[in-house]
């Protein structure tokens, strides 16, 4: 039995709307807030990317001043990382984790609301820097010293405090998720019986709790170097700008896994459902995810091979980085083995999940190329790197999120997604994502540097294709917005189970999921009399 505090007085109109969304402690409502926030930031970040691609459509400087181009690149990165991908995953965690482990809500519901509502303020502050004297931050999302210390624009301080706010939000959100998973599982559900999405989020939350405070330390040192005369990142006082890179990437590498591990979890939920087989190698999936997370703490140096580091350091970071390919390979193998001889159908979530596996693997392989020190000397700071991380982030993190939305939206809204529109979105997205990012491998290998407003004429063809693809990709996501709204507003009613072979507690509650679920813990294991899935 779950008790609720006395109901607040009945309100109507705007007051009701505000009190519902500003004061809510419900994990589903907060999950929706996170997802809509992430979606809107996705369009803001996307609009900045459109600006970048329009400018790069042709060599020479057409539309955008170089100084403003730098701001676009910086803000695109910051908004996509902290405003789109991370809140989207937290939104999915909010909606799904309590449903998947049979919890009545998140462990700390008020803190959950707090974590969310910090974000709009943080991003309001960050975006306002566009209108400040000297413009928005222009040093890349990595804000290397001395670009952010000695040479940073005035708005850097607002960026610093904005990052602090996002950090508070992320750490509190991660603590909440961690405690929910450890403490609120339905009695009897062992850790090694949790759905993989929950497992990957558990590990992601650990990464957040340990990595984000290091980012907070880094921005604090940038702040004091800028204004209080410290010399952390200045050789004049005995510090070192390279130290900034070490501290930043100690946060930064776990951060990039924060942006992909929940995607691994999503693929591991969706593929078994549509292959109508149990996930192949559940245990090895868990161990692989944990290994990837642990390794993520000892590979940061691979971002700095050309910065300068003792040879022993370069070798250490190279081998550790390559080691990550082993658990990642285990995961890809398991997904493929799950599909092997399954009776597969290709609904939209499955299409996105398969694209995730294939295209993420391409991004993984280019990462392996970048891990090799001598090769990286050639690739570093070229469009090859841009191609690499966009392959892991767009078809990885973002397609993962989209797969999750297509997979769970019927449960959230009570309506099936119109498959025709979903497939249209998928096929246009898959064409345009490759059109945008695949040519970047070639322009990068040919030597086109990244983060620069202009380029040499020999890269023109590749860039033209990329820019064309990017415009299409941008439009495709408007289609996605249309599909989401269309599904929420109506459509074929979804059954409780939604998908024929879906497994897990979230499919035992009605569709749409009522505001409060599992007020009494559900029985575990799920006592289905007609168990049939997964039988060989």
């Amino acid at each position: 039995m779950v008790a609720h505090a006395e109901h607040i007085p009945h309100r109507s109109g705007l007051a009701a709307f505000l009190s519902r969304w500003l004061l809510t402690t419900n994990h589903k409502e907060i999950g929706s807030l996170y997802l809509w926030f992430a979606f809107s930031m996705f369009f803001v970040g996307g609009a900045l990317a459109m600006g970048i691609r329009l400018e790069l459509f042709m060599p020479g400087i057409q539309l955008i001043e170089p100084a403003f181009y730098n701001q676009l690149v910086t803000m695109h990165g910051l908004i996509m990382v902290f405003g789109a991908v991370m809140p989207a995953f937290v939104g999915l965690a909010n909606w799904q984790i309590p449903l998947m482990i049979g919890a009545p809500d998140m462990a700390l519901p008020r803190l959950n609301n707090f974590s969310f509502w910090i974000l709009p303020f943080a991003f309001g502050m960050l975006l306002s820097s566009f209108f400040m004297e000297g413009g928005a931050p222009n040093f890349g999302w990595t804000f290397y010293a001395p670009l952010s210390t000695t040479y940073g624009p005035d708005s850097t301080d607002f960026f610093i405090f904005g990052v602090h706010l996002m950090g508070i939000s992320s750490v509190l959100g991660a603590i909440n998720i961690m405690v929910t998973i450890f403490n609120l599982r339905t009695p009897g559900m062992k850790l090694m019986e949790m759905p993989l999405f929950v497992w990957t989020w558990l590990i992601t939350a650990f990464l957040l709790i340990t990595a984000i405070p290091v980012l907070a330390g880094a921005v604090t040192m940038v702040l004091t170097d800028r204004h209080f005369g410290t010399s952390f990142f200045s050789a004049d006082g005995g510090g070192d700008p390279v130290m900034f890179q070490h501290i930043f990437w100690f946060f930064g590498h776990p951060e990039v896994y924060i942006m992909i591990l929940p995607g691994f979890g999503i693929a591991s939920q969706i593929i078994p459902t549509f292959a109508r087989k149990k996930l192949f190698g559940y245990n090895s999936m868990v161990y692989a995810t944990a290994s990837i997370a642990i390794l993520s703490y000892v590979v940061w140096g691979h971002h700095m091979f050309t910065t300068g580091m003792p040879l022993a350091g370069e070798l250490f970071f190279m081998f550790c980085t390559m080691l990550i390919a082993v658990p990642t390979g285990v995961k890809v193998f398991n997904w493929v083995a799950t599909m092997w001889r399954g009776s597969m159908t290709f609904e939209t979530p499955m299409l996105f999940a398969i694209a995730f596996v294939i295209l993420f693997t391409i991004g993984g392989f280019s990462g392996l190329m970048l891990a090799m020190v001598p090769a990286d000397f050639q690739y570093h700071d070229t469009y090859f790197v841009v191609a690499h991380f966009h392959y892991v982030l767009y078809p990885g993190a973002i397609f993962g999120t989209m797969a999750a939305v297509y997979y769970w939206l019927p449960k959230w809204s009570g309506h099936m997604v119109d498959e025709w529109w979903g497939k249209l979105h998928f096929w246009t997205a898959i064409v345009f994502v490759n059109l945008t990012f695949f040519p970047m491998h070639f322009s990068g290998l040919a030597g086109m540097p990244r983060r620069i407003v202009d380029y040499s004429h020999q890269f023109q063809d590749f860039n033209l294709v990329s820019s064309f693809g990017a415009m299409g990709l941008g439009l495709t996501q408007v289609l996605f917005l249309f599909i989401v709204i269309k599904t929420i507003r109506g459509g074929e009613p979804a059954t409780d189970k939604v998908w024929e072979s879906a497994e897990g507690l979230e499919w035992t509650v009605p569709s749409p999921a009522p505001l409060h679920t599992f007020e009494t813990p559900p029985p575990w294991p799920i006592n289905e009399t007609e168990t049939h899935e997964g039988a060989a």
Partner: protein
Amino acid sequence: MSDQAPRYYVPHTSYWPIVGAVSLFVAAFGAATFIHESTDFIAAESQYGEWVFYIGLIMIACMMFGWFKNVVSESVRGMMSGLMDVSYRQSMAWFIVSEVFFFGAFFGALFYARLWSVPWLAGAGNNLWTHTILHPNFADTWPLFLTPDGTQTQTMGPWGLPFINTLILVTSSVTVTFSHWALKKRDRIVAGAWLALTVGLGIVFLILQVAEYIHAFDDLGLTLGSGIYGSTFFMLTGFHGAHVTMGTIMLAVMLFRIFSGHFTPENHFAFEATSWYWHFVDVVWLFLFTFVYWF
């Protein structure tokens, strides 16, 4: 799990989180503006940032007071189940883990400077030419009293105030434990006395820390601007001091709550969380004493 308490209490709605989000924003916006207005080379037109920052801090304090008051009254009314208690415990533990990593960033900077950047600037490894061309007179010492650009400072020895402060903090960790034992025996007077002593030790620590800073500024010429030694010294001791301040305030609130009769031998998690936090700042200090002052 008691019979009255629900299995898991889910509060319906709450004003405090949104108040908290607004307060944090006001404080952050005020801080950024304040720093701008007070350090800009061009004289700022207005000087409102400072006050916005203070208002933000006051709002945060009010929010924390209101929010915690809310939670305390729920706890006193018996809304908290055993499961809820576990949630709070785990959350506090993970929060302390995140704090460990926050300090880790600054300790990382300290070790990086000591092990690498300072020796490299003095020509260690393959940096002979950097040394010869850029700073030929620079010598690798720690504490670094002469920076590459020639800033001089004296260094803070470990055996004066810092050692006394070490004794104070270690003692306070013991007294807070005595207070906890007394609380478990339902001995409110003794628990309160030991806790009051702990709060007093925290305040003495902070006063001595301020005295040490004044000594550093006035007598030693050691400031934030004294190169990497001053940077790491003040950053680490400063953030530690901020945590001690926070911990002392928390302890004082617990003292007030002991005398208000909020705690029972079974149910006093707020006290335990505070003492965990206190032990945490104590352990951080031991690392500080060892690596910032001593070796």
